[in-house]
């Protein structure tokens, strides 16, 4: 059987590589300076979808909601082997919490579908909430398997999945369609293929073409889009007008969680004892801790 999948992907600030440039003197992070990366577990999810395609056939679509810059991520998906990609982007979608995000994503999936499998990474490293997957499943009225580690079998429209639980693992079986969230251990993402990489360099999303038009008065957006579509270089882009969404459920307006305030933590500082990094200094520290029965 062939299996059509859609993979939810997100571009995230690289929290693992916070360098000096990124830190402001007051200890906060300058987000604009952070490199943006493919959320690691989303990449694993894409890899799993591609492996299924290699084995059973079918089509893999990658979907992201984000600013125009997220087009980079979709080019990366194409270079790994995704058949189609789609950018959901609109000012009205900005500032969304997980509930508003999953609402818009679920509408986009409904529009692009039907699909046999919806894949997502377990969580995104900028928030670690792990909420968007299950919330999207609920909105689409799909069963979900979270923390998926391995797809054991796919036969006659029934999937068997091994998933992690806190004290071990479970093997679950469910009919398609279904949503899976995938953990980092599930697969090793393939590197981009050189040939595809070259080809998708010139692929553009709607907001990117709009920017080209803004910069060059000789271009018209409609003809430019037509041209890119004909050459197979257009990233399908969905805005608020393309989706059947209620505006009040999107973006900041549709997000029940609000940030009330943000405090910087003032560290007490300096109140500790400096221990010299020498044999004597450390020996004395050990002695003090032994005397206080902290160890020994």
């Amino acid at each position, binding site marked *: 059987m062939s299996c059509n999948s859609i993979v939810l992907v997100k571009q995230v600030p690289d929290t693992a590589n916070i360098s000096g440039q990124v830190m402001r003197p007051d200890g*906060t992070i300058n987000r604009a300076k952070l490199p943006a990366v493919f959320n690691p577990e989303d990449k694993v999810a894409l890899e799993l979808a591609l492996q299924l395609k290699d084995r059973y056939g079918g089509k893999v679509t990658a979907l992201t909601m984000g600013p125009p810059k997220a087009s980079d991520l979709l080019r990366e998906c194409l270079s790994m082997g995704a058949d189609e990609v789609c950018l959901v982007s609109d000012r009205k979608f900005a500032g969304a919490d997980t509930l508003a995000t999953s609402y818009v994503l679920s509408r986009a999936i409904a529009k692009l579908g039907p699909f046999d499998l919806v894949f997502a990474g377990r969580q995104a490293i900028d928030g670690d909430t792990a909420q968007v997957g299950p919330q999207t499943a609920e909105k689409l009225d799909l069963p979900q398997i979270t923390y998926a580690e391995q797809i054991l079998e796919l036969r006659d429209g029934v999937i068997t999945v091994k998933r992690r639980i806190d004290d071990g693992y*479970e093997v*679950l079986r469910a009919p398609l369609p279904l949503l899976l969230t995938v953990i980092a251990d599930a697969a090793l993402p393939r590197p981009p293929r050189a040939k595809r990489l070259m080809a998708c360099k010139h692929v553009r999303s709607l907001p990117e073409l709009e920017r080209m038009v803004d910069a060059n008065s000789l271009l018209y957006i409609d003809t430019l889009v037509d041209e890119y579509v004909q050459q197979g270089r257009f990233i399908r882009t969905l805005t608020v007008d393309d989706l059947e969404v209620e505006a009040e459920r999107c973006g900041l307006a549709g997000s029940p969680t609000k940030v009330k305030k943000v405090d910087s933590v003032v560290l007490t500082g300096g109140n500790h004892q400096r221990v010299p990094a020498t044999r004597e200094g450390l020996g004395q520290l050990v002695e003090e801790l032994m005397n206080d029965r*902290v160890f020994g």
Partner: protein
Amino acid sequence: MSNANRDVWVFVEQRDGRAAEVSFELLSKGRKLADQLGGSLKALLLGHELGEAVRQAFHYGSDEVLLVEHPELRDYRTLPYSRVVGGLIAKQQPRIVLFGATFIGRDLAPRVASFTRSGLTADCTDLQIGDADYLRREYKDLLLQVRPAFGGNIIATIITPEAPVQMATVREGVMELVPQATPRGETVTRIPYEPTASDNLVTVVERHREERRNKVKSAPIVVAGGYGMGSKKNFALLHQLAQLIGGEVAGTRAAVDAGFITPDRQVGQTGLTVRPKLYIACGISGAIQHRAGMQESTRIIAINSDADAPIFDVCHYGIVGDAAAVIPLLIDGYRERLR
């Protein structure tokens, strides 16, 4: 949207009929929140043959237990659990619902929040009741959901002013366990479970459980390493030190990401919360998400080559130096004095 209901619910999760520790911690916190709100604390329990868990729910402060018992609910499964929990919340509209940030809670809570269109804040490190102004409107008695925010030393307070039901998840070990001298309530409200066809779409073929893997949470000494340890080989030094002084090895998320240590030993906001007698932080910068999981340790030793690292602001003993050189000296010092 207003909600006249002032009740606090805690989803009490169970495995083999035994309630999870984190659920008792949440009941302890929920007790305080309910008192402040002037509402009652209700424990929501799904499963089969839950007598002991019910008794304990009262012991940790519940006024009432909402009990859904059925053989088919013995083990957690997403679809029936989320349908039952979501349905009850939608109907009764409690003011607050708390879940443990466990594999079960993190599977269930978002699905329920989506169904009831509630706000949900993950991995809170503190919960309080307070008033808030938002967009020039005043809101009374909101749940203030405190969580470190991505970005330097920043703590964000999240509110869900317009949502009738406010939801949050909390990791094990974050809230204090407060048993009551005498059980608060005794009211058990039984709620019938009526299976539907869709409840059984997903079937369990096999379930394998291991003994609880590691003892980091209960260890008197934790030797933790960060990205600054540089390699898995250097991490072996931490194991050596831990073994010698009777401790457990843990790490930061950066150390986990680098493959120096397994994820189940990550300390911090999205990992374990520990309060050992001694915490030795080696090559750890001291990001707020990490400190959230260790700053209440009785004593903290920090070893870092950067004298300005924030970890030095929460430690009791600070050693500026290369961890790979300092740890062997600590090991030697300990061995010498043992003799």
